């Protein structure tokens, strides 16, 4: 079979070859393989895109047109116990805008065995969740005479987290910067290291102290273990991909965040491109719409072509266009004209809108071809 395949492998995408091999099974005779693959190549050649096809517009239409059918503000309630996630049109806009702050940042944390089977799942989930000092404090009081902050700890909460007071003190020594920590009887006592005994300063320190993370991962403010298929997954609200991926029990091959920029920073641009595709596809699928993945790929490729994620906005992709007129036809034309005049820019009229403006054929599709004719000198 391998021999019979050889001549066709180069002609077809590898995914297609393997799908066909699977379909035929091992028992197919060489002649059958040959005849089938010959037909496959024929069919593939007929399905290929033609040169000049305006794939960008088709992709934009394919995403823009179902946009009108999508619902706004849908929150996702799959299953009884999942949390709210921005879905629908707002989410697509968020992704394609390249927004840095998301409405609902979240992660799906996949676990390694045996944790994925549910072992210690609650404990693990809690260990990921950030806990701040205020969450375990029963009372925070100010001792103004000594410029000291006293924190009474709720023992029950602490033991729930599997921490001891001693442990807490050692964590705080590291995390609470600029403060000295001491355990006096039942109270945690904090004092500013530099000797400014200003009352205002102490108040400020107190507010800062409340927010000190004593356990878990910063940024993950809610966790939820969920059974997905045959394994347990932890869904979190708030993201911190870098720290989570470094945890020993996390399956770092599958764990994802929904923050494209975080993925770009941690895993690189290729991963970010895939994340754009996945995130948009998830929404479209969720809405019961049908859009081919190729269109999303093209959008993701335009967004990531510069080597970093750019939104489809006047500050992102459009700004980097070569043509002044194309930029001007989008938004803020005056700004682009002024710039162009300073730099003496030349618009070579290589894309679509400029030529529309000048009533000339556009260089895509049937307008792309140019006729080269030999000029007959003798005539």
């Amino acid at each position, binding site marked *: 079979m391998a021999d019979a395949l050889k001549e066709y492998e180069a002609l077809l*995408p590898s995914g297609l070859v393997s799908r066909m091999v699977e379909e035929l099974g091992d028992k197919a005779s060489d002649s059958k393989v040959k005849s089938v693959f010959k037909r496959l190549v024929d069919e593939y050649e007929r399905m290929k895109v033609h040169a000049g096809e305006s794939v960008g517009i088709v*992709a*934009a239409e394919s995403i823009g047109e179902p946009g009108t059918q999508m619902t706004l503000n849908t929150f996702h309630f799959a299953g009884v*116990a999942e949390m709210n996630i921005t879905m629908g049109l707002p989410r697509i806009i968020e992704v394609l805008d390249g927004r840095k702050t998301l409405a609902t940042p979240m992660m799906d944390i996949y676990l390694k065995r045996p944790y994925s089977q549910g072992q210690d799942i609650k404990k693990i989930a809690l260990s990921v969740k950030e806990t701040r000092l205020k969450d375990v404090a029963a009372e925070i009081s100010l001792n103004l005479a000594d410029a000291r902050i006293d924190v009474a700890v709720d023992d029950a909460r602490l033991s729930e987290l599997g921490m001891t007071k001693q442990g807490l003190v050692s964590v705080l020594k590291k995390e609470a910067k600029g403060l000295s920590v001491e355990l006096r009887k039942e109270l945690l006592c904090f004092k500013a290291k530099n000797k400014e005994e200003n009352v205002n300063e102490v108040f400020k320190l107190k507010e800062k102290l409340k927010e000190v993370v004593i356990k878990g991962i910063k940024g993950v403010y809610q966790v939820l273990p969920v059974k997905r298929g045959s394994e347990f997954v932890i869904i979190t609200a708030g993201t911190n991909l870098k720290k989570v991926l470094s945890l020993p029990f996390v399956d770092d091959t599958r764990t994802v965040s929904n923050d494209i920029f975080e993925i770009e920073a941690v895993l690189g641009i290729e991963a970010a491109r895939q994340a754009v595709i996945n995130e948009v596809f998830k929404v479209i699928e969720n809405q019961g719409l049908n859009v*081919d*993945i190729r269109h999303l790929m093209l959008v993701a490729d335009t967004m990531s072509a510069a080597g970093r994620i750019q939104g489809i906005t006047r500050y992102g992709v459009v700004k980097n266009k070569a043509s002044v007129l194309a930029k001007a036809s989008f938004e803020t*034309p*005056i700004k682009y004209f002024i710039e162009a005049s300073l730099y003496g820019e030349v618009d070579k009229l290589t894309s679509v809108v400029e030529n529309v403006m000048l009533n000339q054929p556009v260089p895509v599709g049937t307008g792309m071809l140019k006729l080269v004719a030999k000029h007959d000198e003798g005539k």
Partner: protein
Amino acid sequence: MDENFVYKQVGSVIFGMLSPKMIKKMASAKVVTPELYDKEGYPVDGGLMDVRLGVIDPGLRCKTCGSRLKECIGHFGYISLARPVIHYNYVPVILTFLRNTCRECSRVLLADAKLSQVRDKLRQIGAEKGPDVMRKRLKEDIAASNNAGKCPYCKARQFKITIEKPTTFLENERRISPIEIRSRLEKVTDDDAELFGLNVRASRPEWMVLTVFPIPPVTMRPSITLETGERSEDDLTHKLGDIVRINQRLFENINAGAPEIIVEDLWDLLQYHVTTFFDNEIAQLPPARHRSGQPLKTISERIRSKEGRIRHNLVGKRTNFSARTVISPDPMLGLNEVGVPDIMALNLTVPERVTEWNIDYLKRFVKNGPKAYPGANYIIRPDGKKKKLTEDIIEATLEELQPGYIVERHLMDGDIAIFNRQPSLHRVSMMCHHVRVLPCKTLRFNPAVCFPYNADFDGDEMNLHIPQTEESRAEAELLMMVQTQLISPRYGLAVIGCVQDAISGNYLLTQKGFSLRREDAVDLLSSIGVTDLSSLPKKEVVSGKEVFSMLLPGDFNFAGRSRSKDEPEVVIEDGKLVSGVMDKNNLGEGSGLLLRNLHKKYGESFAVDLLGRLFRLGISVLFRRGFTTTIADTDLLAEAGDKISALFVSAEQEVQRLIAEFNSGQLKPFPGRSSRETLELKILEVLNKARNETGHIVADYANPGSHTLIMANSGARGNLLNLAQMAGCVGQQALRGKRIEKGFKNRTLSCFRPFDLGSEAHGFIKSSFKRGLKPAEFFFQAMVGRDSLMDTALRTPKSGYLYRRLSNAMQDLKVEYDGTVRDASGRILQFSYGEDGIDVSRSEGGTINVSRIARSE
């Protein structure tokens, strides 16, 4: 044939700044007076409407080029400003120059040694990331170089420069006059200017401060004559009048040696007028207004925004040879036809060139003239002169007509037309149809093509365009014809298929036990244009399936599934429908698998033809059988009613039980939820289950022969849920995925007790639409209805904007001859489109159907 083809194309557009020299050079008149017309109403020499600047009055001749109105495109003029003023749009650039160059010697505030280091790096950044990044970098370098506030060249002390918006620059709280600014900018060397990203061939820094001011030609600011004979000037003319007047006053005052304060005031006023001439929507400046108080529309307002020159006139254009009217359905038309009203056909024309071979044919149209159909409206002589055909000149024209002329004849059957419905969200919103001239006054087309246009007939209007050249007609026919658009480029499945009655009809026809007499079958088939009846079984009574099979090609094999539970397997062998019912899964758009297979095997023209016939077959069946819908369809047996009420009683009990459990604190919350939330979720579950149960009961008891159910089962229109809502119960009204909670304090409506958690108090509607809703139920339904209405109203502009941005960002991506996807500057985005080079609109649902290829021999 001596036609004047224009062989020239615009190759590129260069942008740059106008130098004072250039402004003077391109000007054909110097404007010296704000007056417009003299007593006779003739434009004043040296005024703003000077005839040297172009003509807008019929009868006058332009003094510059000698041509008349419409021929003369207008010419610029200029005025010399008494004192220089700053060009508003360059204020940020001027500021960077002032801050980063020496106030004495105008050199960049970087020492020579450092400068030579930085220069190449800056150039590189400028080339890669654009001039604004480069400028930012230069600022950083200067800030980092730490010159201790002194110029490294002349050691002059530097001061802090601030800006008082919009156009005043301050140095150490003291104002720098534009004269001073200009002289500083003049001293900047070309090499230094380049560091700021300026291209000195296109722009010198001092040109950003204006000393002469260009006056745009009158043709771009025409005045309009009102009915009263009064002239009303354009906004720009008003603004220019202000500038000229103040400039004049400033001159006089300076010459007369007026006190500095007065001169300064006038200077500021001039600056204001010049600034608002460029942009009248600056936040810090009050806009210049008409006497009526309405703000003037000056240069920037003319260009920007959706109604501006660019988006309104340049990117969007108006066309001739187009028509628009209300649409209506006509299943007797082919899928690729459009019915055009005869009055439209009299006005829309197609140009045809006269040759030796068609001269007699075209003379017939000329003979008919413009009023009789099919006639002609215009003829175009070989020299390009267009002549309107009237009754009087028909005879003369017939004599005159010879090869080389063009006759613009009326629209006729078979002509090519592009049909469109807005919003044109995807390419199938504009498709090419063949014209069919018909009586009456609406545009008509086959309802099977409603789906791609997203059209219905509740008053929708559509547009028709008639391509005017052979090239455009050929392209439209080959690339845009309805049959070429059968497969959606969005998901690779059919977008055109049977709809509504056509599905119901075929569904009934192909159902088990549907039979008809042979005569009726022949009648039915011939009514839809099947003439070869040899393959109709020679029996007295033929089954519906046999009739249906008559349309299929003899060598067609197909295996699929239908929605029906009785006959889920659809089998077609050798063009005979052996088993299975034809419904939306097989005939409809979207899925339409049968059609997809026919299209694949027999080609697009065949598929479109067959679809038309299938459509008419379905409708003809209904014509003969009768099909309607009635309220009686929702009648249920008393038994069913009892069952439904029993169901509600038990559901209500369950809800009460849950509430009691919650009140006693025994309800176990779901992880991550409060017990209140858990209660809500559980109640929702119970109530939704109850509604679904009523749906099942309705489905069980409904008469399967009722037309409502036929429509639902075949997928033609509606579903079981709709029927259940009419006959059984409407169900829970949900607002944002929750039961209704808003309203009064602690309760939804004042007719309920506070803290009532029961089903009825939170929007569960027990009644059916047929029985009618109770007041509270009606109100809840209205709440949800309003919410979804708002949702639609808010969504449309959002998704519209997303679409605009996407299409603007991606419009120049195309597949090159080497199969790569590139943008306009040739940057490769994908090496192979979609990683495998497959065109979705040629694929089967986005992929190649491997198993079909493996199986077919």
